[in-house]
């Protein structure tokens, strides 16, 4: 392997943003045809490095060599032309346009002076098909759930036929099946000589896919080694400077108390039908399902965001027929939404203001926000969640994806809800913080709260939940107590194969 030609080399690249040194003299060398992992805590600088290589941002210092030639991209277009593609961590699309148009934005097929729509659809279909994405190319991107958007994002980067591909957490909202398809595709690309850089917080993926690993910490390269030289624990230690003990099974759960959330005969046309379940105090109920199964829709409907839903919901023992987010909050039910950018954060506001938003009335006297209480709440969340940001006054826009996710969780933990619906709570969060968040969720349950967790990562559901419900195409297809649940059992229920 080491004899192979180098595809990308960065030499002492530095990049700083106001108040942060995101990259500090980073030098890496990525062999042609290899799959090179880039790992590190949230905010370590992985995305920044990826963006620099793909021409989205310019480094302050340092140089980039592509196949031994120094390149200096003045924009993404040149990078695309040089054969560098990137699957972005943050899904940015022209949401007003169709999937096909988004995929062909840089160079749409034309016939004469006009766009050739038929050819564009054909091309989009082909690209989506190559990763077996079940997405309608003429659908408007804005109407797609985030998981589908992620598939579109991948299809775009892969389909363009780039020779160097940077995957920045491509699977953060995909479930196992889609992930598997993606991996097959990546392996095929690798065998045809394409070079991949792979960023992920999921250790299993690194070990199944990658040849070499570079660990970043605080913008510096701390290690580059072949995968064979590492095991899970040593890699984690390199990333966060300490080991984490991973609880393999549930620890002592307290005895479930009274029912806090009861959903009966819940139906919303085209989304889900006849959903019945309840969550007791002290329980953590996991919802398993493939992408598009309708789990998000169920959670949002409970939180009063779906006007068309029928059926009954009881919160804290009280009927809640006409719900909206305000009444739900008042009754002690909160929702951590899955899309941090669109639903979770107000990017124009700083970290402190985002954290305190749902709890402002509690932090104020006579309508005036008590600055000191607000600040202490925010600082506390920062410590608890290990948010890496210059300060609680930092703009959320500049935070790394994982750190943004931590703020969303912090915001809802601060709201002290009795019932918490968590939709992909650890999407993009690093291993250390993930363990921390799991611990917090368990503690909530210990304290007699009810938690509902939606996650596309089966291992996460398995170690967290006390009970797991599987959803397929909008219906509950099975329920297993955590003690009997395995990935296999769940997968079978989720996919409907026996």
């Amino acid at each position, binding site marked *: 392997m080491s004899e192979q030609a180098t595809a990308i080399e960065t030499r002492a690249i530095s990049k700083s943003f106001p108040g942060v040194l995101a990259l500090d003299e980073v030098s890496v060398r990525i062999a042609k045809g290899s799959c090179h992992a880039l790992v590190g805590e949230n905010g370590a600088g992985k995305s920044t490095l990826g963006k620099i290589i793909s021409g*989205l941002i310019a480094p302050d210092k340092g140089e980039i060599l592509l196949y031994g030639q120094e390149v200096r991209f003045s*924009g993404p*277009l040149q990078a695309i032309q040089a054969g560098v593609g990137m699957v972005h961590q943050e899904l940015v699309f*022209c949401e*007003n346009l169709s999937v096909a148009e*988004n995929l062909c*934005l*840089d160079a*749409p097929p034309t016939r004469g002076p*006009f766009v050739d729509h038929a050819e564009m659809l054909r091309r989009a279909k082909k690209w989506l098909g190559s990763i077996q994405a079940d997405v309608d190319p003429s659908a408007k991107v804005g109407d797609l759930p985030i998981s589908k958007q992620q598939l579109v994002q991948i299809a775009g980067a892969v389909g363009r036929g780039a020779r160097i591909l940077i995957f920045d957490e491509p699977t953060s909202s995909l479930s196992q099946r889609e992930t598997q398809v993606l991996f097959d595709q990546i392996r095929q690309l690798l065998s045809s000589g394409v070079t991949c850089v792979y960023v992920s917080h999921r250790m299993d993926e690194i070990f199944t896919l990658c040849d070499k690993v570079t660990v970043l910490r605080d913008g510096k390269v701390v290690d580059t080694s072949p995968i064979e030289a590492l095991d899970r624990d040593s890699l984690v230690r390199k990333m966060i400077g300490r080991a984490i003990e991973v609880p393999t099974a549930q620890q002592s759960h307290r005895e479930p108390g009274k029912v806090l959330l009861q959903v009966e005969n819940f139906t919303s046309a085209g989304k889900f039908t006849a959903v019945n379940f309840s969550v007791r105090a002290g329980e953590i109920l996991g919802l398993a399902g493939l992408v598009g199964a309708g789990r998000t829709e169920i959670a949002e409907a409970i939180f009063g965001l779906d006007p068309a839903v029928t059926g009954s919901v009881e919160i804290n023992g009280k009927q809640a027929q006409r719900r909206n987010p305000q009444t739900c909050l008042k009754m002690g039910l909160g929702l951590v939404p899955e899309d941090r950018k669109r639903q979770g954060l107000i990017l124009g506001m700083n970290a402190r203001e985002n954290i305190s938003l749902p709890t402002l009335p509690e932090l104020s006297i006579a309508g005036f926000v008590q600055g000191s209480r607000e600040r202490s709440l925010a600082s506390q969340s920062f410590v608890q969640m290990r948010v890496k940001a210059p300060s609680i006054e930092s703009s959320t826009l500049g935070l790394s994806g994982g750190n943004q996710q931590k703020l969303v969780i912090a915001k809802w933990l601060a709201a002290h809800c009795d019932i918490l619906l968590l939709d992909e709570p650890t999407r993009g969060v690093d291993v250390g913080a993930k363990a921390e968040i799991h611990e917090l969720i368990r503690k909530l349950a210990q304290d007699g709260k009810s938690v509902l967790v939606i996650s596309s990562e089966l291992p996460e559901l398995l170690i967290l939940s006390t009970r797991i419900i599987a959803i397929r195409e909008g219906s509950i297809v099975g329920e297993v107590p955590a003690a009997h649940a395995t990935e296999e059992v769940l997968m079978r229920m989720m996919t409907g194969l026996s």
Partner: protein
Amino acid sequence: MMRRSWAAVFGSQQFGLIVVILLLCALLTGFSGSFNDHGRSVNNFLNAGTLIQVLTDSSFFAVMAVGATIVIISGGIDLSVGSTYALAGVLMAMVLRGHHDLGAGGVLGAGLLCAGIGIACGAANGLLICSLGVHPFIITLGTMLVYRGISFVSSRAESILVPQSLTAFAKARLGLPGQLHPIPMLVMIGVAVLGWVFLTRTVAGRRIFAVGGNLLASKYSGLRVTPILIGVYAISGLTAGIAAYVGASFYGAASSADGTSYELFVIASAVVGGASLTGGKGSAISAMLGALLISLMRQSVRSLHFDQNYESIIIGCAIIVAVVLDRVSARLGSRRFYKKQA
């Protein structure tokens, strides 16, 4: 195929607007009375003269509204169109001052001159917006004052007559009987159709939607945003130039007061036509229909013999009601169709 085309009609962006316009026309036909023309009873509203008159009145607005809709799709706003209209008209009239008979070449040349001035004004807006990184509201408010000022300084508020041959062209009857002047109407339709083809069929048009939909995503996809935006404002200027050419020719003169406070109504036409001020959404044909609707409402105040003093109250309410009706009927239209399908 048949079904698909019905879906296209009922579900189209234009459906709501067309319904509202037809309703208003029906109202006007019903209530404006009729007169006796050589023994035949002719409706006061529903006759070629009045209809072409209404279309002519709206045409100048409508042409600019097509430009405005393109700017709005790109996520911007252009407050300078009224002033550009004045400047293009005044400068053209001044260049032609003293010429009496232009000939076909001269008529064409005058048009190119006017359009060129419009493009220059618009491109200047675009350049300033992109190079200074200041919100288009401020830039075009500034140039609105500047262009108006330049047209005043050059003409001293005099009304400058344009050569007869231009008026002869703009008022050509093209074989229609009587005093019917279809040229402004045809220009309006032409510009709207061209704008529609440009926006929906060409690469540049789609890129404008992309930039307005999500600037960052467009940049990530390698689009060069600056030339696109400069182009967008240049097109807006161009439409103001075209409107100025037709306007000055049709009315026979240009002055620095022309187009005063048009900007808000031009933008309103585009928005009534469904353009979204947050960018990424809009249609050239709908913008034209929007302008037509606003003109029709003005006409109604007169045709229905309302008290003129209440004109601005009536029009203010009518604009709001029109937008609401448009959205409602668009929704009903598409729902009815989908119900049938199901």
